[in-house]
């Protein structure tokens, strides 16, 4: 807990807001996996991290500090002793209940269209950072994405990989899609880079 508290205190200093939609999706995911008891444990943990915002009053389109959203993910990981795979799954599943994602589904016609609009998704969710498409090679079935300015915690890189993978899976319509973080701010790179490939 001391480690988490310390990490969160540092994270709180990083500016940037996220839509409540992401927070709600994560809370829904926790409840689906661990029930109301599990969800309450996470809420308690977040409270202990000195966040005054009530998690019961989050509204999808309002802006909240990204540090709050990150705290929920990290608290769930600690409370349930989750692995990186679980955090990835959380990111992957959050797209399924996201209200903003539903509104963006108009672009889910093809993978080209989805990633043409990818930076738009970012702006709908965050008021900081940037998402860029570095490479789009439909012939060789690969896309390279970079994320700049979102450097909260290494576990969030995993969460975001899960999130982006689901967007690709939804647009391609098949399971054989993979994602790999090829560059990471926490490993000394200047941004996060993700390679998406499919069969």
């Amino acid at each position, binding site marked *: 807990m001391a480690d988490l508290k310390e990490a969160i205190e540092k994270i709180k200093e990083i500016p940037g807001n996220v839509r409540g939609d992401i927070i709600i999706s994560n809370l829904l995911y926790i409840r689906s996996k661990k029930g109301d008891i599990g969800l309450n444990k996470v809420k308690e943990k977040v409270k202990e991290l000195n966040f005054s915002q009530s998690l019961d009053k989050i509204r999808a389109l309002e802006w909240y500090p990204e540090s709050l959203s990150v705290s929920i993910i990290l608290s769930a990981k600690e409370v349930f002793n989750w692995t990186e795979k679980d955090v990835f799954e959380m990111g992957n599943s959050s797209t399924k209940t996201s209200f903003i994602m539903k509104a963006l589904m*108009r672009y889910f016609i093809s993978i080209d269209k989805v990633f043409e609009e990818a930076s738009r998704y970012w702006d709908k969710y965050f008021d900081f950072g940037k998402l860029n498409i570095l490479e789009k090679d439909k012939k060789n079935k690969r896309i390279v994405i970079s994320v700049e300015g979102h450097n909260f915690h290494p576990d969030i890189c995993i969460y975001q990989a899960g999130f982006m993978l689901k967007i690709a899976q939804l647009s391609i319509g098949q399971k054989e899609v993979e994602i790999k973080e090829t560059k990471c701010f926490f490993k000394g790179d200047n941004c996060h880079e993700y390679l998406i490939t499919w069969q």
Partner: protein
Amino acid sequence: MKNKKEQEKISTLLEDLNLLESYAQELFSFTPLPLFFISPNGVILEANPSVEKITKKNIYEIIGEPVETVLDEKEIKRIIKETLKKGSTQSQEMFLADKENKKIPVNVFSQARRNQKDKIIGCFLGLFDLTEIKNKEELLEESRQVLEIKVAAKTRELQNLADELEIKINERTKELEEKIVELEKINRLMVGREMKMVELKEKLEENEKKIKKLKNNHG
């Protein structure tokens, strides 16, 4: 000043959006009809709580899956094709498979969803669970069959009774006919005896007349 007004405007718009979002969510969650939104290539992008109920799968197991994992592949592909071409389809009966692969009869209605440029971006599917109706239909059919069997049994019973009655009537008729023949015989005998008596009476009267006449002649 201008900035403050802009801020107020944004805040009002955000509030309106939040209200709209809650309204859409509540409406979508409330409806007892299972509703899907699928991409043109048949991936389930959205499903309401009624879908969870009918499929016995949670939302995380449904979204992102090909629609043919829950609806009959051949039929649903045909419906998507038709919807993308015509804009909508009405009342198509097919089977939905739940988590235990139990087949549930449903009626499917579809409607294309378009973007601002009028390009189709997917389709809505509305399902109507036919289980209750089918169960009632089966019960009705069973009742009809039971009724048919009962009617047939009663008809057979009545037929047997009628046959037995006919036999009895025939026997009775035969008995009566025999009695009539006997009576006729008796009658004939009686009539014959009667005639004979009349004849004898006449003869007696004639003889009496003759005797009287003889007496008169000798007297």
